[in-house]
């Protein structure tokens, strides 16, 4: 057993003052010295683009990497619904404290209180910042910003830009980044994928990348490295993540010693379009905002084959409204998802293969008129119709839960630094703010909070200690060893010469992870997965087929390394889920539920962050615990009745 102490570095004092006093207490780097530091930023989604732009504005030398052809294509762009900000513009009782409270409660008391409070504090700055950049948030006729209530919130604190909020926020951050590129403050490397994190004497020294166009493997040295590389939802294969979203950057950091926290905390989004066949490559999310005006139901009878319009009111079961009268169709994501799974498993699912539930707008159309409903959701309805050939204005949508977001990620302290000094994780790539379940419209908030306001401040505290010290150069053996390992890996994959594509193994792995570590988990299933995954991985390593060469563009080669990482991660997700003998948020162990079928936490034994240390291939990872302390919010049973 190694001796890792997980020091969260959370400041003391009243929770409202912690971030302010921490900012004051941190050491600064003076403006003339900032240019002496090189910071590597990996990923250009909300967290990465925001961090790279802000660090460059501050005067640091920034090198920024993305595997996309342009920073604007990062998957943050696909977020539809909105971003929370505790502005209380609607005078409905919102406040920083309420957003903080809602987020801690929504996370089922498995997040770090101090981080969440900071998130709520800076949420108001984010809205100001984005508006200043020209993000076209929806407005009222008087010119003021519009807000809506979103995903389980009882106040209207969500800012939105039609159904394309993520796109507009990302374009704002991307444009700020491109301005810094034009000023020469950021060196941008597109089509460049991280393949290894390099450490020297336990400290982050830089990264090794592959140019996806030329195949060139290169080393980059930096005083600090920021991983802003998103979540790992594609471990399920079918998810709402983009095709290329992967865990590789986080995972390679993990294999270099960074702890991976709470991998079993994954979020299943209730409103996605159900899969139609075996060839489906991904699932499409329909914004949760639809639940504001749509009513979710299934037939009361099993195997009711009538068309929805022929099913009279008395034969419909509006199951969320029935079970959760105060929240109804706006019940939090995990609860809405599990209930949908339950009715489908009971045999009351709808659609050609009975794998969905209805989301019905008829009542809203009757109350508000077609125009209002179409103005609110038109672009989502169009998208739905393109995929399913059905018009939601005329017949109810069909929806089903899908993997959407991962709350777990690299363990970070209050400064967003992993346990490897100099290596940071921002946005979805870290674990810290959402606990066991994330509230709607909070992912965009956290990505931008980390990128614009947190990391650019906290990084100075670390870098100030490095002043006058020469960083490890790329000619150091630490880099050449890593480059050789990366090149060996690629040659090895091509040499296997098996019969099945990396895509095939990804799909097969996804089925196991989804079946046993998806919406519900139990001991038997998880143990089964823990024997099936290594067996499949063994087959994958012996029988995968990667054609072509390591030089030039080779999409199969890009894919195979990512799938290999998903295999190892999938195993860790199951191991974490098996260890956590309780239900909390998105982690639902069927053995641990209340009589009403709700998640039953075990605060006495599991009020901790489970952070895993990689111990080598074929060796079981070891668990390290960071106890969670709640001083401002008293853990209660999370009831949405």
């Amino acid at each position: 057993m190694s001796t890792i102490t997980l020091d969260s570095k959370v400041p003391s004092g009243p929770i409202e003052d912690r971030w302010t006093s921490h900012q004051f207490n941190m050491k600064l780097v003076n403006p003339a010295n900032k240019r002496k530091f090189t910071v590597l930023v990996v990923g250009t989604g909300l967290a990465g683009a925001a961090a790279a732009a802000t660090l460059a504005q501050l005067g640091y030398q920034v090198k920024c990497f993305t595997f996309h052809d342009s920073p604007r294509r990062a998957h943050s762009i696909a977020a539809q619904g909105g971003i929370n900000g505790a502005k209380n513009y609607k005078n409905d009782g919102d406040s920083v404290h309420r957003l903080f409270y809602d987020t801690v409660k929504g996370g089922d008391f498995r997040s770090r209180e101090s981080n969440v409070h900071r998130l709520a504090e800076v949420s108001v700055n984010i809205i100001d910042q984005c508006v200043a950049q020209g993000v076209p948030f929806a407005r009222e006729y008087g010119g003021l910003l519009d807000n809506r209530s979103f995903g389980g919130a009882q106040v209207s604190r969500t800012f939105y830009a039609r159904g394309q909020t993520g796109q507009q926020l990302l374009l704002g951050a991307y444009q700020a980044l491109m301005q810094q590129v034009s000023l020469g403050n950021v060196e941008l490397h597109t089509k460049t994928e991280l393949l290894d994190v390099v450490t020297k004497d336990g400290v982050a020294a830089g990264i090794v990348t592959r140019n996806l166009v030329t195949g060139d493997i290169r080393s980059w040295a930096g005083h600090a490295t920021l991983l802003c590389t998103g979540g790992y939802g594609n471990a399920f294969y079918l998810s709402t993540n983009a095709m290329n979203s992967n865990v590789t950057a986080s995972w390679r950091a993990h294999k270099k010693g960074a702890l991976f926290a709470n991998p079993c905390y994954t979020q299943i989004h209730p409103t996605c379009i159900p899969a139609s066949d075996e060839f489906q490559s991904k699932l499409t999310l329909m914004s949760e905002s639809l639940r504001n005006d749509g009513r979710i139901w299934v037939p009361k009878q099993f195997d009711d084959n009538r068309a929805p319009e022929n099913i009279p009111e008395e034969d419909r079961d509006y199951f969320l409204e029935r079970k959760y009268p105060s929240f109804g169709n706006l019940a939090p994501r995990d609860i809405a998802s599990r209930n949908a799974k339950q009715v489908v498993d009971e045999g009351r699912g709808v659609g050609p293969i009975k794998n969905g539930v209805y989301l019905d707008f008829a009542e809203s159309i009757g109350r508000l008129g077609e125009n209002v409903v179409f103005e609110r959701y038109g672009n989502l309805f169009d998208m739905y119709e393109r995929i399913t050939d059905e018009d939601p204005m005329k017949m109810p949508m069909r929806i089903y839960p899908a993997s959407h977001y991962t709350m777990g990620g690299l363990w970070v302290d209050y400064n967003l630094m992993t346990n490897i000094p100099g290596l940071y994780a921002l946005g979805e790539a870290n674990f810290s703010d959402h606990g066991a379940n994330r509230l709607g419209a909070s992912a965009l908030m956290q990505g931008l909070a980390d990128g614009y306001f947190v990391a650019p401040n906290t990084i100075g505290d670390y870098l100030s200690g490095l002043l006058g010290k020469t960083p490890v150069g790329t000619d150091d053996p630490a880099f050449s060893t890593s480059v050789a390992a990366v090149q060996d890996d690629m040659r090895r994959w091509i040499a296997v010469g098996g019969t099945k594509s990396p895509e095939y193994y990804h799909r097969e792995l996804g089925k196991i992870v989804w079946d046993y570590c998806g919406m519900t988990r139990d001991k038997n299933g998880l143990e089964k997965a823990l024997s099936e995954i290594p067996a499949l991985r063994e087959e994958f390593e012996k029988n995968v087929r990667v054609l072509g060469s390591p030089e030039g563009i080779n999409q199969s080669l890009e894919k195979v390394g990512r799938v290999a990482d998903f295999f190892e991660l999938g195993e860790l997700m199951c191991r974490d889920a098996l260890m956590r003998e309780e239900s909390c948020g998105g982690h639902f162990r069927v053995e641990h539920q209340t009589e009403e079928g709700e998640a039953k936490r075990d605060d006495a034994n599991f009020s901790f962050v489970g952070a895993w240390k990689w111990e080598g291939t074929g060796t079981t990872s070891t668990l390290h615990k960071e106890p969670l302390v709640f001083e401002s919010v008293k853990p209660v049973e999370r009831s949405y009745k």
Partner: protein
Amino acid sequence: MNLTLKVWRQSGPTDPGHFETYEATDVKDEMSFLEMLDLVNENLIADGHEPITFDSDCREGICGTCGLMINGQAHGPQKGTTTCQLHMRKFHDGETVTIEPWRAAAFPVLKDLMVDRSAFDAIIQSGGFITADTGGPRDANEILIPKIAVDSAMDAAACIGCGACVAACPNGAAQLFTSAKLAHLNLLPQGQAERWKRTEDMVETMEMFFGSCTNYGECQEACPKEIPIDFIAMMNRDFLKSKLKNRKLQGQR
């Protein structure tokens, strides 16, 4: 359904490239166009042939990564739809489908159906932003923006930067892309301070890479976000004004 595909294969930027014919069998209506290509690729790999290289990411029509010329149309036959959102029910059994990469001098082919669109980033880099360094902006509600103005800005900001407008244009011009970004920023009060400089810089950068606009209007037809060419008119007007305004502004310094 079964389809015959004529697919452009090109091993690298210097290879002249050629069409290969493939049979796509057992294609389902519910498949997206790219899932159909995934299937073809799986079969190619099984037969020991290198799969077709093409770009895609979100497969929700928002990231702008995908884009193919399908039977000579950018993003294929369905209006307002990206390649990834195009479904096979738009095709019929026995059809021959020709698949090519974007064809434009400013978008060199990297491999097969994948092109290099970095010229778009160069245009944004030249002025497609509002200078607002992080920290210290005024309260978001202090800037009143009429709903109609922000809605119009949003129409323009919906551009996904896929390049279909350029691919569809007989001149390989990027006026629709450039004007959409200019309109997004120039229509907003926050964008006024840099309006004239932005316009001049972006238009002139655009002209370094792309062809000229001769009002064919093909871009508007091909745009998966249905961005109208009205924005091009606005850009032209602003560009003309910028030539005068920028000079005057200089005089004030």
